[in-house]
């Protein structure tokens, strides 16, 4: 195909379409008007108009995580770009591929404190995987395609392309450069043969192995989850998942021990503590997972499979690092295991499972739903029961409800669970749900929410209506910033400093004012009906579930404690208050 002459804005649209982008989330403004004009004159690219740029990035994250594609954002210069910063940081922490196009003042005004000027590449340098400022129209096609390549390759992440307005209007030549051969950025995908052989030999020799898997499995693609499933079945080992990894292995399978970490299950955390071999797959030994580092999995050897070499030995020193793509490496391991005809130590594994089953008998997630007051765990468990056989996607906000969702909603498939893990961004869930719904118009998309987080980005309710995205927001309403209150109980003598929200809006009326449907349950026997009604309505719905205001999230490893120092319920909490060292941690 001959190179085509067009202006910068048209080059951008062309590049987006050639990268397979079908939807872009954005908000117009002075610096990006030429791109909006180009959007107006085409019909290959759908634009979702958001209500604040922060929402646009979370929508793109929801879109990306539920589809495996790169999410795309378009915002204007200055405040448009600075509003996007939280979402970009969120995507960086959770390794979500995003390309964010930001408008910029024309090149001759850069540095002059022009109207709506901000040093966008400077501001976003630490919160993106990479960023570009386009200063010459001749560079534009290459930079556009490189941005997508960098966003999706290796450990995925957000990329910003800053676009001065004169570049958007300049005439240039478009070249389709989708096949990027990058001169410096070429992440290693495949592991060395000897690394693979060592890894499978260590697994075969282990007496108390445990697979600890994270979001890297999901980012690697559906094939990685299938290979993981095969390897787990082949080795007979137990598996635990991080918050980011939920769905990478079926939650209803008996080899799954539940989520691990601060609010993980008793059996998962004790298995981590007692294991003699931990196989970390696409997980990064986050502080929410490890607890106190000097007491973390003290008697284990560790294999760490990750595509990002900087994740290796960052928090925890491991015995065998294996750098590469999780799916590729799991495939290599399966082949090596079969080629060598390896067998596990059946007797030792049997004893290990016996121990695990004893831990399971503690039934650490049990709660008492008695009386009419709705337990939040009950509400989420009922939501799971009502939706588990449907084509359903779940997003969350951040806080207690997020942990309860992780504990009580069982994900059997990857890419069904969208939550802000690394950054912990309140207000993530509603826009993320809209992004998921736009990508999957026929599916059921539920944002499991708390009322405090919901208020942080509720302006996006209006986006949902305009984009015809019938998302459901399932609010476990306790009128507190529940997780803040829980920590104040644990660490600060129950002095509830500013964690109670007086003057909440009437969420049912709010829904109606925004052209949504508002439902409410205040008693336990109303929960099922509200859920059924919520699901049956083909419009956006708020389900305002008034839950027990004082309920806390257990099990819990208090910050600064080890895996075998869990609190299993309020009685433990009364006995054991947090340590001084723990108080300074977050």
């Amino acid at each position: 195909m001959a190179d085509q002459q067009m202006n910068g804005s048209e080059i951008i649209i062309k590049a987006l379409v050639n990268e397979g982008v079908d939807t872009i989330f954005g908000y117009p403004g002075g610096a990006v008007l030429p791109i909006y004009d180009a959007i107006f004159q085409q019909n290959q690219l759908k634009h979702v108009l958001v209500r604040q740029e922060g929402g646009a990035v979370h929508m793109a994250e929801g879109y990306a995580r539920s589809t495996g594609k790169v999410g795309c954002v378009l915002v204007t210069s200055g405040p448009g770009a600075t509003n996007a910063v939280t979402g970009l940081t969120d995507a960086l922490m959770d390794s979500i591929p995003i390309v964010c196009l930001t408008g910029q003042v024309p090149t001759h005004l850069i540095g002059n404190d022009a109207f709506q000027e901000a040093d966008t590449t400077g501001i976003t340098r630490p919160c993106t995987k990479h960023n570009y400022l386009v200063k010459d129209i001749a560079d534009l096609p290459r930079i556009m395609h490189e941005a997508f390549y960098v966003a999706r390759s290796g450990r995925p992440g957000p990329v910003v392309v800053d676009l001065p307005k004169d570049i958007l209007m300049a005439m240039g030549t478009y070249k389709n450069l989708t096949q990027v051969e990058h001169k410096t950025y070429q992440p290693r995908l495949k592991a060395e043969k000897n690394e693979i052989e060592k890894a499978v030999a260590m697994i075969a020799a282990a007496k108390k192995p445990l697979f600890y898997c994270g979001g890297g499995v999901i980012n690697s693609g559906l094939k990685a989850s299938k290979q993981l499933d095969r390897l787990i079945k082949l080795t007979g080992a137990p598996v635990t998942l991080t918050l980011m990894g939920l769905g990478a292995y079926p939650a209803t399978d008996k080899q799954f021990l539940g989520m691990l970490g601060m609010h993980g299950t008793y059996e998962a955390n004790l298995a981590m503590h007692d294991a003699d071999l931990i196989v970390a797959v696409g997980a990064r030994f986050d502080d929410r997972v490890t607890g106190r580092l000097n007491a973390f999995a003290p008697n284990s050897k560790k294999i760490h499979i990750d595509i990002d070499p900087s994740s290796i030995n960052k928090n925890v020193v491991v015995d065998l690092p294996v750098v590469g793509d999780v799916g590729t490496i799991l495939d290599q391991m399966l082949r090596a295991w079969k080629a060598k005809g390896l067998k596990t130590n059946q007797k030792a594994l049997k004893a290990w499972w016996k121990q695990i089953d004893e831990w399971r008998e503690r039934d650490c997630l049990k709660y008492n739903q008695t009386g009419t007051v709705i337990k939040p765990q009950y509400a989420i468990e009922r939501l799971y029961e009502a939706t588990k056989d449907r084509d359903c996607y779940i997003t969350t906000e951040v806080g207690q409800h997020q942990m309860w969702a992780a504990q009580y909603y069982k994900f059997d498939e990857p890419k069904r669970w969208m939550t802000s893990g690394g950054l912990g961004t309140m207000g993530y869930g509603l826009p993320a749900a809209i992004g998921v719904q736009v990508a999957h118009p026929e599916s059921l998309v539920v944002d499991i929410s708390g009322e405090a987080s919901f208020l942080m980005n509720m302006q996006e309710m209006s986006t949902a209506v305009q984009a015809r995205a019938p998302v459901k927001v399932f609010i476990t309403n306790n009128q507190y910033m529940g997780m803040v209150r829980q920590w104040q109980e644990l660490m600060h003598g129950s002095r509830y400093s500013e964690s109670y929200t007086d003057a909440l809006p009437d969420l049912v009326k709010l829904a109606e004012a925004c052209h949504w449907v508002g439902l409410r349950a205040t008693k336990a026997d109303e929960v099922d009906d509200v859920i059924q009604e919520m699901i049956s309505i083909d419009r956006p719905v708020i389900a305002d579930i008034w839950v027990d205001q004082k309920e806390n999230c257990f099990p819990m490893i208090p910050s600064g404690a080890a895996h075998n120092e869990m609190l299993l319920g309020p009685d433990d909490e009364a006995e054991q208050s947090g340590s001084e060292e723990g108080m300074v941690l977050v």
Partner: protein
Amino acid sequence: MVVDSTIERHTIAVLVDNEAGVLARVIGLFSGRGYNIESLTVAETDTADAISRITVVTSGTPQIIEQIKAQLNRLVPVHRVVDLTAEGANVERELALVKVAGKGDKRVEALRIADIFRARAIDSTNESFVFEISGATEKLNAFIDLMVPLGLVDVSRTGVVAIARGKSAL
């Protein structure tokens, strides 16, 4: 595994694309993650391919040094990261311009010491010298210390540049 907590000093060479913002990326990485920079130098070394060489002297535990290299390698415009300290023998040099003002005996003494250190006087007035001295950081420190009582008024240093010994390139 046992974590080694001894602090080591490493000289790391980084080859980068000479493009806008690349130095800010490297410096931002060090400040954002709390790593030390004892010295940092940068200049274009391959004009045909527009590649610059950054020499950074840093210190930390072996685990931190490993992290620094991994994090540097993760930056998109970075071609290569080589830990010269870990790779074997290397030579390190720094250059300083040292201005000493004074009269009489002190002036003579400054010249005498400069001669011992093989520093060259590259500017002279009736009341001052500017010396050029190159060598290891410690040698420069020693020279500058000796100049203090002799009328040291100004110092400009390049920071460390380093290269591996032997015939092979980076």
